Protein backbone atom coordinates (compact mmCIF):
# COMPACT_ATOMS: atom_id res chain seq x y z
CA UNK A 1 0.00 0.00 0.00
CA UNK A 2 1.36 3.38 -0.89
CA UNK A 3 1.79 5.78 2.02
CA UNK A 4 -0.04 9.06 2.40
CA UNK A 5 1.43 11.58 -0.08
CA UNK A 6 4.41 13.32 1.52
CA UNK A 7 3.27 16.43 3.32
CA UNK A 8 5.95 18.34 5.17
CA UNK A 9 5.23 18.33 8.91
CA UNK A 10 4.17 21.49 10.71
CA UNK A 11 7.13 23.58 11.72
CA UNK A 12 8.76 22.36 14.97
CA UNK A 13 7.66 24.31 18.04
CA UNK A 14 9.33 24.47 21.47
CA UNK A 15 7.94 22.34 24.29
CA UNK A 16 4.88 23.55 26.13
CA UNK A 17 6.93 24.20 29.28
CA UNK A 18 9.39 26.31 27.33
CA UNK A 19 6.61 28.22 25.64
CA UNK A 20 4.84 28.92 28.90
CA UNK A 21 8.02 30.07 30.61
CA UNK A 22 8.90 32.29 27.67
CA UNK A 23 5.50 33.95 27.59
CA UNK A 24 5.50 34.53 31.34
CA UNK A 25 8.96 36.05 31.16
CA UNK A 26 8.06 38.30 28.27
CA UNK A 27 10.65 36.63 26.00
CA UNK A 28 10.07 38.45 22.74
CA UNK A 29 12.13 36.12 20.56
CA UNK A 30 10.32 33.02 21.73
CA UNK A 31 7.01 34.82 21.47
CA UNK A 32 7.73 35.82 17.87
CA UNK A 33 8.54 32.22 16.99
CA UNK A 34 5.32 31.01 18.59
CA UNK A 35 3.33 33.77 16.92
CA UNK A 36 4.75 32.92 13.48
CA UNK A 37 4.20 29.21 14.02
CA UNK A 38 0.60 29.56 15.23
CA UNK A 39 -0.62 32.50 13.19
CA UNK A 40 -1.63 30.65 9.99
CA UNK A 41 -3.66 28.07 11.86
CA UNK A 42 -5.25 30.64 14.16
CA UNK A 43 -6.24 32.85 11.28
CA UNK A 44 -7.61 29.91 9.32
CA UNK A 45 -9.75 28.77 12.24
CA UNK A 46 -10.88 32.32 13.03
CA UNK A 47 -11.89 32.70 9.41
CA UNK A 48 -14.39 29.86 9.78
CA UNK A 49 -16.33 32.05 12.21
CA UNK A 50 -16.15 35.46 10.56
CA UNK A 51 -16.93 36.87 7.16
CA UNK A 52 -13.59 38.28 6.04
CA UNK A 53 -9.83 37.85 6.28
CA UNK A 54 -9.54 41.31 7.81
CA UNK A 55 -11.87 40.41 10.68
CA UNK A 56 -10.09 37.06 11.13
CA UNK A 57 -6.79 38.94 11.51
CA UNK A 58 -8.42 41.21 14.06
CA UNK A 59 -9.67 38.17 15.99
CA UNK A 60 -6.18 36.67 16.03
CA UNK A 61 -4.64 39.93 17.26
CA UNK A 62 -7.21 40.20 20.06
CA UNK A 63 -6.59 36.58 20.94
CA UNK A 64 -2.87 37.13 21.28
CA UNK A 65 -3.43 40.16 23.47
CA UNK A 66 -5.70 38.11 25.70
CA UNK A 67 -3.12 35.30 25.82
CA UNK A 68 -0.24 37.60 26.80
CA UNK A 69 -2.32 39.51 29.33
CA UNK A 70 -3.84 36.37 30.81
CA UNK A 71 -0.94 33.92 30.71
CA UNK A 72 -0.53 33.98 34.50
CA UNK A 73 -4.08 32.65 34.82
CA UNK A 74 -3.29 29.52 32.82
CA UNK A 75 -3.43 26.72 35.37
CA UNK A 76 -2.35 23.78 33.24
CA UNK A 77 -5.64 21.92 33.46
CA UNK A 78 -5.57 21.66 29.68
CA UNK A 79 -2.68 21.95 27.25
CA UNK A 80 -1.49 25.45 26.49
CA UNK A 81 -2.60 24.97 22.89
CA UNK A 82 -6.11 24.01 23.97
CA UNK A 83 -6.28 27.05 26.27
CA UNK A 84 -5.07 29.36 23.51
CA UNK A 85 -7.54 27.84 21.08
CA UNK A 86 -10.44 28.30 23.50
CA UNK A 87 -9.56 32.00 23.76
CA UNK A 88 -9.45 32.16 19.96
CA UNK A 89 -12.87 30.57 19.51
CA UNK A 90 -14.40 32.79 22.19
CA UNK A 91 -13.01 35.90 20.49
CA UNK A 92 -14.19 34.63 17.13
CA UNK A 93 -17.68 33.86 18.38
CA UNK A 94 -17.92 37.36 19.86
CA UNK A 95 -17.17 38.77 16.42
CA UNK A 96 -19.37 36.30 14.58
CA UNK A 97 -22.29 37.23 16.78
CA UNK A 98 -22.12 40.59 15.00
CA UNK A 99 -21.88 39.00 11.57
CA UNK A 100 -22.88 35.60 10.30
CA UNK A 101 -23.41 32.49 12.39
CA UNK A 102 -20.62 29.96 12.37
CA UNK A 103 -21.51 26.72 10.67
CA UNK A 104 -20.60 23.84 12.96
CA UNK A 105 -18.15 21.42 11.38
CA UNK A 106 -20.18 18.47 12.49
CA UNK A 107 -23.01 19.39 10.15
CA UNK A 108 -22.74 18.63 6.45
CA UNK A 109 -23.18 21.50 4.05
CA UNK A 110 -24.57 21.04 0.54
CA UNK A 111 -21.22 21.90 -1.01
CA UNK A 112 -19.51 19.15 0.96
CA UNK A 113 -21.70 16.31 -0.18
CA UNK A 114 -22.18 13.98 -3.05
CA UNK A 115 -20.91 15.01 -6.42
CA UNK A 116 -18.20 13.28 -8.43
CA UNK A 117 -14.73 14.73 -8.05
CA UNK A 118 -14.14 14.19 -11.77
CA UNK A 119 -16.92 14.85 -14.27
CA UNK A 120 -18.61 11.59 -15.36
CA UNK A 121 -18.16 12.57 -19.01
CA UNK A 122 -14.41 11.98 -18.55
CA UNK A 123 -15.11 8.23 -18.22
CA UNK A 124 -16.40 5.60 -20.58
CA UNK A 125 -20.08 4.80 -20.31
CA UNK A 126 -21.71 1.43 -19.73
CA UNK A 127 -22.04 0.70 -23.43
CA UNK A 128 -18.43 1.62 -24.20
CA UNK A 129 -15.62 -0.91 -24.43
CA UNK A 130 -14.22 -0.26 -20.93
CA UNK A 131 -17.00 1.16 -18.73
CA UNK A 132 -15.70 3.35 -15.92
CA UNK A 133 -12.24 3.76 -17.40
CA UNK A 134 -10.90 7.04 -18.65
CA UNK A 135 -12.41 8.38 -21.85
CA UNK A 136 -10.54 11.68 -21.55
CA UNK A 137 -7.56 10.78 -19.39
CA UNK A 138 -5.43 13.26 -17.42
CA UNK A 139 -2.30 14.49 -19.16
CA UNK A 140 1.03 14.67 -17.35
CA UNK A 141 1.66 18.22 -16.17
CA UNK A 142 5.41 18.37 -16.37
CA UNK A 143 8.63 16.48 -15.84
CA UNK A 144 9.08 15.66 -12.13
CA UNK A 145 12.46 17.33 -11.83
CA UNK A 146 11.16 20.74 -12.84
CA UNK A 147 9.75 23.22 -10.33
CA UNK A 148 6.23 22.23 -9.66
CA UNK A 149 4.32 25.24 -10.81
CA UNK A 150 5.10 28.63 -12.22
CA UNK A 151 4.45 31.62 -9.97
CA UNK A 152 1.42 32.42 -12.07
CA UNK A 153 0.02 28.92 -11.58
CA UNK A 154 0.66 29.23 -7.84
CA UNK A 155 -1.32 32.48 -7.76
CA UNK A 156 -4.10 30.69 -9.61
CA UNK A 157 -4.02 27.89 -7.04
CA UNK A 158 -4.09 30.39 -4.19
CA UNK A 159 -7.13 32.09 -5.70
CA UNK A 160 -8.84 28.72 -6.17
CA UNK A 161 -8.13 27.79 -2.56
CA UNK A 162 -9.77 31.02 -1.41
CA UNK A 163 -12.87 30.14 -3.41
CA UNK A 164 -13.34 26.65 -1.98
CA UNK A 165 -16.39 26.13 0.23
CA UNK A 166 -15.56 27.23 3.79
CA UNK A 167 -15.06 23.82 5.34
CA UNK A 168 -13.02 22.43 2.48
CA UNK A 169 -10.85 25.56 2.46
CA UNK A 170 -10.22 25.24 6.18
CA UNK A 171 -9.30 21.56 6.07
CA UNK A 172 -7.10 21.83 2.97
CA UNK A 173 -5.44 24.87 4.51
CA UNK A 174 -4.70 23.18 7.80
CA UNK A 175 -3.65 19.81 6.28
CA UNK A 176 -1.95 20.63 3.01
CA UNK A 177 -0.86 24.29 3.31
CA UNK A 178 0.23 24.23 6.92
CA UNK A 179 1.03 20.54 7.33
CA UNK A 180 -1.04 19.69 10.40
CA UNK A 181 -1.81 16.02 10.90
CA UNK A 182 -5.27 14.56 10.56
CA UNK A 183 -5.34 13.96 14.32
CA UNK A 184 -4.44 17.57 15.12
CA UNK A 185 -7.09 18.91 12.78
CA UNK A 186 -9.78 16.58 14.10
CA UNK A 187 -8.94 17.55 17.70
CA UNK A 188 -8.85 21.24 16.85
CA UNK A 189 -12.18 21.34 15.07
CA UNK A 190 -14.08 18.54 16.80
CA UNK A 191 -14.30 16.58 13.55
CA UNK A 192 -14.44 12.86 13.02
CA UNK A 193 -11.65 11.35 10.94
CA UNK A 194 -14.22 10.46 8.32
CA UNK A 195 -15.60 14.00 8.01
CA UNK A 196 -12.09 15.38 7.86
CA UNK A 197 -11.20 12.96 5.05
CA UNK A 198 -14.33 13.79 3.07
CA UNK A 199 -13.62 17.52 3.23
CA UNK A 200 -9.95 17.02 2.39
CA UNK A 201 -10.81 14.73 -0.52
CA UNK A 202 -13.30 17.15 -2.02
CA UNK A 203 -11.09 20.17 -1.53
CA UNK A 204 -7.96 18.55 -2.95
CA UNK A 205 -9.87 17.07 -5.87
CA UNK A 206 -11.43 20.39 -6.72
CA UNK A 207 -8.05 22.12 -6.66
CA UNK A 208 -6.51 19.42 -8.85
CA UNK A 209 -9.30 19.97 -11.34
CA UNK A 210 -8.74 23.73 -11.28
CA UNK A 211 -5.03 23.28 -11.89
CA UNK A 212 -5.66 20.76 -14.63
CA UNK A 213 -7.95 23.17 -16.45
CA UNK A 214 -5.48 26.01 -16.01
CA UNK A 215 -2.44 24.02 -17.12
CA UNK A 216 -4.20 22.33 -20.02
CA UNK A 217 -5.47 25.69 -21.25
CA UNK A 218 -1.97 27.10 -21.13
CA UNK A 219 -0.56 23.87 -22.47
CA UNK A 220 2.39 24.31 -20.07
Amino acid at each position, binding site marked *: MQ*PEPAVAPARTAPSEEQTLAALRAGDEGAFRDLFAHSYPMMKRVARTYVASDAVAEEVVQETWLAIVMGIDRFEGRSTLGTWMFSILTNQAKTHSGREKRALPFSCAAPSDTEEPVVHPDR*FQKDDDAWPGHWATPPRPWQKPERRLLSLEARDH*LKAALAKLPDRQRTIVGLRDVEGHSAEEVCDLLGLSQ*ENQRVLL*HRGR*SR*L*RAVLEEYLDDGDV
Partner: protein
Amino acid sequence: MHNSGPPINGHPVSEFDLPVDEVTCQQFVELVTEYFGGVLPARTTSQIEEHLVMCDWCVTYVEQIHATIASLRELGDERPPEPPDAVLAALRARKAGGT
Protein backbone atom coordinates in the same frame (compact mmCIF):
# COMPACT_ATOMS: atom_id res chain seq x y z
CA MET B 1 -18.85 -11.19 3.54
CA HIS B 2 -18.73 -7.55 4.56
CA ASN B 3 -16.04 -5.57 6.32
CA SER B 4 -16.96 -3.64 9.43
CA GLY B 5 -15.64 -0.17 10.16
CA PRO B 6 -16.76 3.45 10.02
CA PRO B 7 -18.49 4.78 6.91
CA ILE B 8 -16.32 6.17 4.12
CA ASN B 9 -17.50 9.34 2.42
CA GLY B 10 -20.88 8.68 3.98
CA HIS B 11 -21.11 5.24 2.45
CA PRO B 12 -21.04 2.03 4.48
CA VAL B 13 -17.70 0.24 4.27
CA SER B 14 -19.35 -2.72 2.60
CA GLU B 15 -19.91 -0.55 -0.47
CA PHE B 16 -16.13 -0.44 -0.92
CA ASP B 17 -15.92 -4.21 -1.06
CA LEU B 18 -16.08 -4.05 -4.82
CA PRO B 19 -18.16 -6.91 -6.20
CA VAL B 20 -15.95 -7.48 -9.24
CA ASP B 21 -12.29 -8.25 -9.56
CA GLU B 22 -11.14 -4.85 -10.71
CA VAL B 23 -11.57 -1.24 -9.71
CA THR B 24 -12.37 1.24 -12.46
CA CYS B 25 -10.71 4.59 -12.98
CA GLN B 26 -13.99 6.30 -12.10
CA GLN B 27 -14.10 4.46 -8.79
CA PHE B 28 -10.43 5.09 -8.08
CA VAL B 29 -10.63 8.88 -8.28
CA GLU B 30 -13.35 8.82 -5.61
CA LEU B 31 -11.25 6.63 -3.33
CA VAL B 32 -7.82 8.17 -3.72
CA THR B 33 -7.77 10.03 -0.39
CA GLU B 34 -9.02 7.03 1.53
CA TYR B 35 -6.47 4.85 -0.26
CA PHE B 36 -3.59 7.07 0.83
CA GLY B 37 -5.11 7.32 4.30
CA GLY B 38 -4.95 3.54 4.61
CA VAL B 39 -8.59 3.20 5.63
CA LEU B 40 -9.99 1.05 2.84
CA PRO B 41 -10.78 -2.63 3.20
CA ALA B 42 -7.77 -4.80 2.39
CA ARG B 43 -9.40 -6.30 -0.70
CA THR B 44 -10.19 -2.88 -2.16
CA THR B 45 -6.66 -1.71 -1.43
CA SER B 46 -5.27 -4.70 -3.33
CA GLN B 47 -7.60 -4.04 -6.24
CA ILE B 48 -6.47 -0.42 -6.37
CA GLU B 49 -2.82 -1.43 -6.31
CA GLU B 50 -3.39 -3.88 -9.13
CA HIS B 51 -5.18 -1.18 -11.07
CA LEU B 52 -2.34 1.29 -10.60
CA VAL B 53 0.13 -1.26 -11.95
CA MET B 54 -1.84 -1.38 -15.18
CA CYS B 55 -3.30 2.12 -15.56
CA ASP B 56 -0.82 4.84 -16.43
CA TRP B 57 -3.63 7.37 -16.56
CA CYS B 58 -4.60 6.81 -12.94
CA VAL B 59 -0.92 6.99 -12.03
CA THR B 60 -0.89 10.38 -13.76
CA TYR B 61 -3.95 11.35 -11.73
CA VAL B 62 -2.14 10.39 -8.53
CA GLU B 63 0.88 12.45 -9.62
CA GLN B 64 -1.43 15.41 -10.17
CA ILE B 65 -2.89 15.03 -6.67
CA HIS B 66 0.65 14.87 -5.25
CA ALA B 67 1.64 17.93 -7.26
CA THR B 68 -1.40 19.81 -6.01
CA ILE B 69 -0.54 18.96 -2.41
CA ALA B 70 3.10 19.94 -2.86
CA SER B 71 2.08 23.24 -4.42
CA LEU B 72 -0.32 23.91 -1.57
CA ARG B 73 2.54 23.31 0.83
CA GLU B 74 4.54 26.01 -0.91
CA LEU B 75 1.72 28.45 -0.21
CA GLY B 76 2.33 27.80 3.48
CA ASP B 77 5.83 29.22 3.26
CA GLU B 78 4.50 32.76 3.08
CA ARG B 79 5.61 34.87 6.02
CA PRO B 80 3.00 35.74 8.65
CA PRO B 81 2.59 39.41 9.60
CA GLU B 82 4.44 41.16 12.38
CA PRO B 83 2.84 40.77 15.82
CA PRO B 84 0.61 43.74 16.60
CA ASP B 85 2.13 46.60 18.56
CA ALA B 86 -0.33 46.25 21.43
CA VAL B 87 0.72 42.63 21.97
CA LEU B 88 4.42 43.47 21.85
CA ALA B 89 3.84 46.32 24.29
CA ALA B 90 2.07 43.97 26.70
CA LEU B 91 4.90 41.47 26.36
CA ARG B 92 7.55 44.10 27.01
CA ALA B 93 5.64 45.41 30.01
CA ARG B 94 5.60 41.87 31.35
CA LYS B 95 9.34 41.56 30.89
CA ALA B 96 9.88 44.87 32.62
CA GLY B 97 7.93 43.59 35.57
CA GLY B 98 4.60 45.21 34.74
CA THR B 99 1.20 43.48 34.61
